[in-house]
Structures are given as structure tokens and as C-alpha cells.
């Protein structure tokens, strides 16, 4: 039986004026039909850092993440504000396709297109009007290098992406996202379907990528969160309970529910 924790007692950090923020949400609520899945999430994400969202399954962390680039459109109702470059992007008149170009996303299961490796990366670029061959080739190389996949596939760019291993596929998906030159990268448990070696590779890639991108990653793996993130938010039953620097989260959690979760009492 899961202990009852008070949702009143939370420890959520805010940032001062000097911190550059990538994204910030105010009173974000998510409803699946009648089902209230996310309550008043107020979180701000610093630029060029990795922020991890942790919590048990069903805690709402993925739901929250998918709201940030409006991937919940048509699936759930999202209310509240999402600030991005001073614009509330959770409004009707906003161009969701532009948003998703700036806020990229990588999913739990690798989902490369059933196309060649090269085509996986250039397809969306071309759809966005980038036509010059040399430029496209440049982007392919840059993004594959960025995702630490280049050396493994550079000779086989015309091979089907489906012939890659799971870990390679996931790095291809990361490459595909960063080829769009986003400034925020959302990752939804990107390593849950991968073996340990591939996981290490992806983590190294992310640590490298934070120099250029702001990264928000959902993970159910606490070790992973402590290895790569600078900030860490803990979700519980649709509430953000604690949001502190990662070091604090794992050495000195502020409230009972986080303490119990970190200690492994549930989840």
C-alpha cells in the first residue's frame, strides 16, 4: 500500500534574474478526458543544462514532457502557460510546427523512419525548404557526429535505418532531432529500450550536447539522472513534489516523499 503524502508540502526551486531560462511552465494542467493527470506544474528549465524528470510510472513526467512541444495536442487537454522566448506557446494561434522545430523530441522506443540513414535526417530538413545538396550533406555529417554515430555509419548512409541496432537507431533519432537545429531537446526515457553499452553512449552524447542545447530528459533510472543531469525534478501522482539541483536531490532530499522514493520505498 502506497503511503499518502501531502501534496501541499513541496520543495520547488525558482531561478533568479541572472539565470537564462529555456522554458518555463506556469500552472500547467493536463486532462485526459475526465482524468486529471497533471496538477499545477510550475517549473523553469535553465539553458544549456540537462534537467531530469524522475518519478514512478504514472507520475505524469512523460505527460508533462509531451506537453512542452505540444505533442499532447489532440490527445489531452493542456491548460496553463508555457513560456518560451517570452512567448506563451500554449495558446491557440501558435504555430505548433514551428514550436516543434525549435523544441525537438526523442521518444522511448527508437522510431527511425523506414528510409535510409541519410534520408532520416534530411527528410524533415527538405520539407522545411533546405534544398541545397551540399548543405544537406553537411547537416547529415554534423548531426551524426553530434549524436556520436558518424563513425559507425559514415560508409553506409544509404543503408536502411531499420538495419541499425537499437542503440544506433536511438542515436540516429537524436541526430535527426538535432539536425533541425532546435534549442531545446526533450527526451522521453530514451534509454529504456537499450542495453547498457548503448545507454552509456547515449549518455555521453547528451553530456556533449548540453553545450549547445537545453535538455530535458524523463528517466525512470535514478542512476542515470544523477550521472547526467544538473537539475532534477521529482513527480508524484501528477504533482511536482521537489525540484532541486541534482546533487541535493540524491544526497539531501527535502521532503518525505522524495526521501522515500530515493530510498527505494516505492516506484
Amino acid at each position, binding site marked *: 500500500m502506497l503511503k499518502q503524502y501531502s501534496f501541499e508540502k513541496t520543495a520547488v526551486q525558482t531561478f533568479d534574474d541572472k539565470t537564462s531560462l529555456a522554458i518555463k511552465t506556469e500552472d500547467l494542467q493536463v486532462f485526459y478526458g475526465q482524468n486529471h493527470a497533471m496538477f499545477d506544474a510550475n517549473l523553469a528549465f535553465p539553458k544549456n543544462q540537462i534537467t531530469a524528470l524522475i518519478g514512478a510510472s504514472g507520475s505524469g513526467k512523460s505527460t508533462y514532457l509531451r506537453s512542452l*512541444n505540444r*505533442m499532447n495536442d489532440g490527445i489531452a487537454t493542456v491548460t496553463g502557460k508555457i513560456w518560451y522566448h517570452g512567448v506563451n506557446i500554449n495558446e491557440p494561434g501558435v504555430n505548433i*510546427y*514551428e*514550436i*516543434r*522545430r525549435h523544441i*525537438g*523530441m*526523442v*521518444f522511448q*522506443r527508437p*522510431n*527511425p*523512419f*523506414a*528510409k535510409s540513414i541519410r534520408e532520416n535526417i534530411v*527528410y*524533415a530538413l527538405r*520539407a*522545411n525548404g533546405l534544398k541545397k545538396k551540399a548543405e544537406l550533406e553537411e547537416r547529415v555529417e554534423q548531426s551524426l557526429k553530434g549524436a556520436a554515430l558518424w563513425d559507425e555509419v559514415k560508409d553506409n548512409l*544509404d*543503408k*536502411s535505418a*531499420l*538495419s541499425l541496432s537499437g542503440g544506433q537507431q536511438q542515436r540516429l*533519432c537524436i541526430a*535527426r*532531432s538535432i539536425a*533541425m537545429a532546435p534549442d531545446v531537446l526533450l527526451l522521453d526515457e530514451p534509454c529504456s529500450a537499450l542495453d547498457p553499452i548503448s545507454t552509456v553512449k547515449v549518455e555521453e552524447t547528451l553530456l556533449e550536447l548540453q553545450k549547445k542545447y537545453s535538455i530535458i530528459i524523463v528517466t525512470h533510472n535514478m542512476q542515470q539522472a544523477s550521472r547526467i543531469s544538473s537539475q532534477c525534478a521529482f513527480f508524484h501522482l501528477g504533482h511536482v513534489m521537489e525540484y532541486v539541483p541534482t546533487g541535493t536531490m540524491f544526497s539531501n532530499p527535502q521532503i518525505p516523499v522524495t526521501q522515500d522514493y530515493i530510498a527505494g520505498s516505492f516506484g
Partner: protein
Amino acid sequence: MNAKRTDLLATILIDLIVASVVGILFFLLAYILTAGLPHVSWSFLTGATDAFSGAGGIGVQLFNSFYLLVLTMLISVPISLGAGIYLAEYAKDNWRTSLIRSAIEVLSSLPSVVVGLFGFLLFVVKFKIGFSVISGAIALTFFNLPLLTRNIEESLSAVSRSQREAGLSLGLSKWKTEIGIILPVALPGIVTGIVLSAGRVFGEAAALIYTAGQSAPVTNFADWNPMDAASPLNPLRPAETLAVHIWKVNTEGLASNAAALSAAASAVLIIAVLLFNLGARLLGTYLYRRVTASK
């Protein structure tokens, strides 16, 4: 003991049933091929029909069948594709969608003779286009749309959600995602469905008797200007197809060798349909390999 005996009897009975079903098919195929193939010759396949008796070759009918098939597919594939995409991607789960689905179901369950009569009423009686290739092609489109739409919707919906999410997360529009990402993956299933439906369209007669008509005026195969009255491509000329020809020869024909003629024409029709079936299978497998594995 009793239960075991019943079990044995039931098994024997079922074996007999299966044997007779297989026997029926083989009898059908063997009958048509043995009765028909000896009469199939190059001159039969390309020759002209005697307008009065219905005797002679089936050249024009064969051409008409293919021409109607091509026209029908040209009209029905794009519409079904759009409708299939609507159902797979845009339709919300509400009463309007279920009404649309019921309408499609009703259309698919209508007897083809009713569809043909509707075409007759619309094109021949109301619009006064007369028995023509185009009337026939549109009637066949009506008959083809619901099945093709359902096939396309199913093929599109079978593609994993994660592929859609991948496209959308890169800022591609829903439409672009559907056309550029999902459609290629769904293509093997769609192509199989299209070719199978082509086989059905090719053999359809009831919907055509009163739309494309029952006469095959001799056409000038040297004249490919669709505007000319004698051109085989003229969409406004009446066009008896092979299937209609078989029916016509058997019911109203005066040819002395009607049985041999229709056996031969049936053999040609069956072989064409078999080829469509086989083609659907091979093409589907081939495309599936192309899409999923490496080159």
C-alpha cells in the same frame, strides 16, 4: 469410447468436406481451362466481334476491360486515398465519424447491380451521357471506393503511432507526415489491396451492363485521339467489357458456338484475375521487403 468415436467421425466428415471444397475449385478451374483454352488463339484475343451474333474475337472487349480498369483506378485510387487518410488521421471518435463509417459500410454492401442501376439512372437517364466508358468507370468507382478506402485506412492505421510522433516531433505537418512517412510504410498493404480490387473490377459485369453498355463498336486502333468518335480512347463511346461479353453471349447471343466462345472468354478472364491475385501477392511481398529491409 463414445466420445472418441464421435471425434473420429467428425474428423472424417470434415476431411470429406474439405476434399469436396478443394474438388469444386479444381473442377471449376479445370473445366474452364480445358473447355476454354483450346479456343484461345491470337486471332481470338485480338479479333473483332460479329456485332449481330456475338461470335468472333474479343479484341475490343479485352481492350475495353483494361481501359475501364485503368480509368476506374485513376478515379478511385486518389479519392480512396484521401478518404482513407481522413479516416486514419483526421476523423475524431464521435458520432459523425461513425455515421461516415456506416455510410461506407452501406455502400460496400450494396449489390453491384444496384450500383450499376444508380449509374444508369445518373449518367444515362439524367445526364444523357449514354452508355459510355466514362459512365462505366464512374459506376465501377462507386463500387470500388468503399473497399479501397477501408483497405487504405487499415493499412495506414497499422503503421505504428511512433512513426507519426517521429514526423510530428520534427515539425512536419500532419499531412506531410502521413504522405511522406506513413504512406511509404503502408504501401505494400495498399498496393496489394489495389491490385486485388483491380481483379474484382476486371471481372465485374452487373454494374456495367447499363452503364458502359453491351455493345463494342469496332474502333480504329490507329487513332489514339480521345476526341475522335472511332478512337479506342474516346471516353464517350459504349464499351462492352470481357465480363459483360460473356454474359451477353450466354443470354442473348445467337452464335452457334456460344459455349466454346464463352468458355474461351472465361478462361481469359480467369487467367487475368489469377494474374492479378498473383501480382498482388508478389508486389506486396516485394514492396514490403523494399520498405523494411535495406536495399
